[in-house]
């Protein structure tokens, strides 16, 4: 990829400044970014949320979201200056010469129309093809992107197609008018690793085949390393550095870039089970469960010992969260039982004693939705302390202060604030404090870091680790991110389609030989090696890629 011949300049952005409207004034959010892109070249834009990646990507199409405006600099696309062009002139570029692939294909396809209807919209609108030609071309693109049943899949509605397939259909749609430039805005972030790898391969193939230039936006370095010829690192609307992909991986110049690399290196020593006949804190035994008539769990068993972290991994729909619902009593299993310190728990939370409820707490993926935005922090944390511990008055305030100290937020600053005033990482810390307030011995962490940036996620993992050591907590850590598993797990349970495929200590699990599915999961995690994707695809043989997608 690196030794493509130099080609003509396609996009030249100079000193781009973008403002966003907040608190009734315009605030600059992108501070003078310059970038240039030749035909057929792929630029990776990487950074945490708030870095301005998507805003810059959209600006390359001359588009600013509501509440944003391009306030300075120039954007020259193939000789045309976009900042001085009329809305009409720019609109003609969109979809025809510059296309966009959004983060969540499920939300970005219109639920009211079939895939192919949306695919042919731009070619018909620009009168580039007749309807039948455009449809045939769509099927050809579906075929090239290795979608199953390319002749037929386009006539389905978005809700009838899986997430990975939708993302590929969206890439096909972006290709409909054979644009010169495609903006990929985190196209695989919402996907499972096993699906992500197919979408990555499909995107890379099609960009190569049509020699399309692309801006690839992501927060995942390992992903961008597979896709981009050169990488630009952004931080809060400023450029940190830019260089070719190899250069960036081998020899990052700035501390911030190195810190992004370092995130994945957080690891703690693995603990082993207490010897003798120690009773596990939680023991799940042969659980079956179903939603209505659909069976979702089958013979799920595993143990979690005090002070240990058991990571439950698997794709979406594998039954991870359902298992958690069975343990907490939100869903009564149809068979099997849950033991807590050797004592059987009633299947429904309604029949459990206050003490049994207190012992098991949960932390959720989306701290945004898990915290009531209209309730003050001290009430959120104080409620479980009051309910389970019977605290009130000064004792309650002391307990809330203590909890805020534990999660490393200054009590005097946060005591009276509301959740929307906090950052994502701080909200997740409040979620942790709320779980701790009950004084539990067991906490279920349901994808607690997957909505967070890597640096912030690392902070949360370190905090959880510290708390575990301090209070001898047992964690059930639900995740689909194997990097997180590597960092914090003692034991790993691999689930697929409601069954436990394999379980054991972390060291064992990351060492071959694996169960074939574990192997598929492990080998699908992108690595910081630009040739990783090529190598994996060769090892698997291209034909096998599609198989993993059949959901």
């Amino acid at each position, binding site marked *: 990829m690196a030794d493509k011949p130099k080609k003509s300049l396609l996009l030249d952005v100079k000193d781009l400044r973008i403002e966003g409207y907040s608190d009734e004034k315009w605030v600059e959010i992108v501070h003078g970014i310059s970038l240039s892109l030749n035909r057929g070249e792929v630029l990776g834009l990487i950074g945490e949320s708030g870095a301005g990646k998507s805003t810059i990507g959209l600006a390359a199409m001359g588009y600013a979201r509501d509440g944003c405006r391009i306030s300075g600099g120039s954007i020259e696309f193939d000789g045309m200056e976009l900042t001085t062009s009329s809305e009409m002139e720019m609109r003609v570029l969109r979809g025809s010469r510059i296309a966009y692939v*959004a983060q969540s294909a499920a939300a970005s396809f*219109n*639920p009211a129309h079939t895939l192919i209807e949306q695919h042919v919209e731009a070619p018909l609108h*620009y009168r580039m093809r007749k309807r039948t030609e455009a449809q045939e071309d769509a099927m050809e693109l579906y075929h090239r992107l290795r979608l199953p049943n390319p002749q037929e899949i386009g006539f389905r*509605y978005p*809700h009838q197609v899986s997430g990975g397939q939708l993302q590929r259909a969206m890439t096909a*749609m972006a290709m409909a008018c054979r644009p010169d430039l495609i903006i990929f805005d985190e196209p695989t972030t919402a996907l499972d690793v096993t699906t992500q790898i197919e979408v990555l391969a499909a995107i890379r193939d099609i960009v190569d085949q049509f020699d399309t230039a692309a801006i690839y936006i992501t927060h995942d370095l390992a992903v961008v390393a597979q896709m981009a010829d050169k990488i630009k690192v952004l931080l809060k609307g400023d450029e940190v550095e830019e260089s070719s992909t190899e250069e960036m991986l081998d020899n990052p110049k700035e501390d911030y870039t190195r810190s992004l690399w370092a995130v994945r290196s957080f690891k703690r020593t693995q603990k082993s089970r207490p010897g003798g006949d120690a009773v596990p804190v939680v023991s799940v035994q042969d659980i079956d469960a179903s939603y209505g008539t659909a069976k979702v769990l089958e013979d799920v068993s595993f143990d979690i010992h005090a002070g240990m972290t058991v990571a439950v991994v698997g794709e979406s729909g594998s039954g991870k969260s359902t298992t958690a619902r069975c343990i907490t009593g939100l869903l009564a299993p149809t068979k099997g039982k849950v033991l807590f310190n050797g004592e059987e728990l009633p299947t429904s939370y309604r029949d459990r004693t206050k003490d049994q409820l207190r012992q098991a707490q949960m932390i959720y993926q989306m701290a945004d939705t898990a915290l009531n935005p209209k309730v003050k922090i001290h009430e959120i944390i104080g409620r479980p302390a009051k309910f389970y511990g019977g605290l009130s008055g000064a004792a309650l305030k002391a307990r809330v202060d203590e909890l805020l100290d534990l999660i490393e937020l200054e009590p005097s600053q946060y005591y009276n604030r509301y959740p929307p005033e906090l950052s994502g990482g701080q909200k997740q810390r409040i979620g942790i404090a709320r779980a701790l307030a009950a004084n539990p011995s067991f906490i279920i962490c349901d994808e607690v870091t997957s909505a967070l940036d890597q640096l912030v996620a690392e902070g949360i993992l370190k905090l959880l680790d510290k708390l575990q050591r301090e209070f001898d907590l047992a964690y059930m850590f639900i995740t689909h991110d194997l990097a997180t598993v590597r960092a914090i797990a003692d034991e790993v349970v691999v689930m697929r389609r409601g069954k436990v495929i394999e379980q054991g200590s972390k060291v064992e699990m990351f060492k071959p030989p694996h169960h074939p599915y574990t192997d598929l999961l492990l080998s699908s995690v992108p690595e910081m090696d630009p040739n990783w994707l090529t190598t994996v695809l060769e090892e698997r043989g291209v034909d096998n890629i599609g198989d993993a997608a059949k959901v």
Partner: protein
Amino acid sequence: MGDVATIILKRLGLGLVTLLVISVLIFSAVELLPGDVAEAVLGQGATAENVAAMREKLGLDQPAPVRYFSWLSGAVTGDFGVSLTSDERVTDKIGPRLLNTLFLASYAAVIAVPLAIVLGVMVALLRNTLFDRVVNVLTLTSISSPEFFLGYILILYLAVKAPLFPAIASLSHGMSLPEVLHRTFLPALTMVLVVTAHMMRMTRAAIINLLASPYIEMARLKGAPAWKVIVRHALPNAWAPIINVVALNLAYLITGVVLVEVVFVYPGIGQLLVDAVSKRDFPVVQAVCLIFAATFILLNLAADIGAILTNPRLRHPK
């Protein structure tokens, strides 16, 4: 489609149950009214024997549940009994009036519904412009004025000052359709003015509500012009709330327009109901109330079915 059929059948069943409950309520409400039907019909000079004979003739000596079930079984077969004031069959009395009301309601609906939706789409497209504000102020003014007032204003300007339409919408046999349409234009227009604002504002709100969706941004980034974004990408997903408001307004056109009928002396069912109440003609009151209830239930059912049919998730299950 099997799923959709099941859902529709379930709703239909629920609608029937609701109607049954309402029939009990109507019957009990009439029972609770003070005084006796027989006394009311015969007037103050009636002797005790006359009243007793009248009671027996009307079946009022039977216990209430018995009378309810005989009324209900009659109603199910379309027999609502005999009017107390004119000895006509209730169905004969209501029939032509109901047809008149349905005619006027359809006349107004055929104008108001497309007008409201087209205006709604236009103000959504031109949101926060002068056009948006003017249309909003005008429709809000018309919805905020009582309908009899609107009616008189229209009569003043379109019948008296500029005699384009008749002020009285009385009908007679043998009128041709254009003649009828001309005659009933003013009451229809009054009703259009009353219901348009509600439907238009809901169309606008439902569309604008969707404009922040990722798929709307996607449509814009595919180069779709603004009108196409609204009509092709937002409107198909906004039908459910719009249909519901349309159904409520259609129900209003049938059941809520007694004032308009009075102003324009239009022989509709609303006037009949008011007359029947004042004359204590209970079989007519009961029948009209039941028809109104059935109208609400049927239109809401139609709205539910419409909302289901515009939802691709239900139309095309996985």
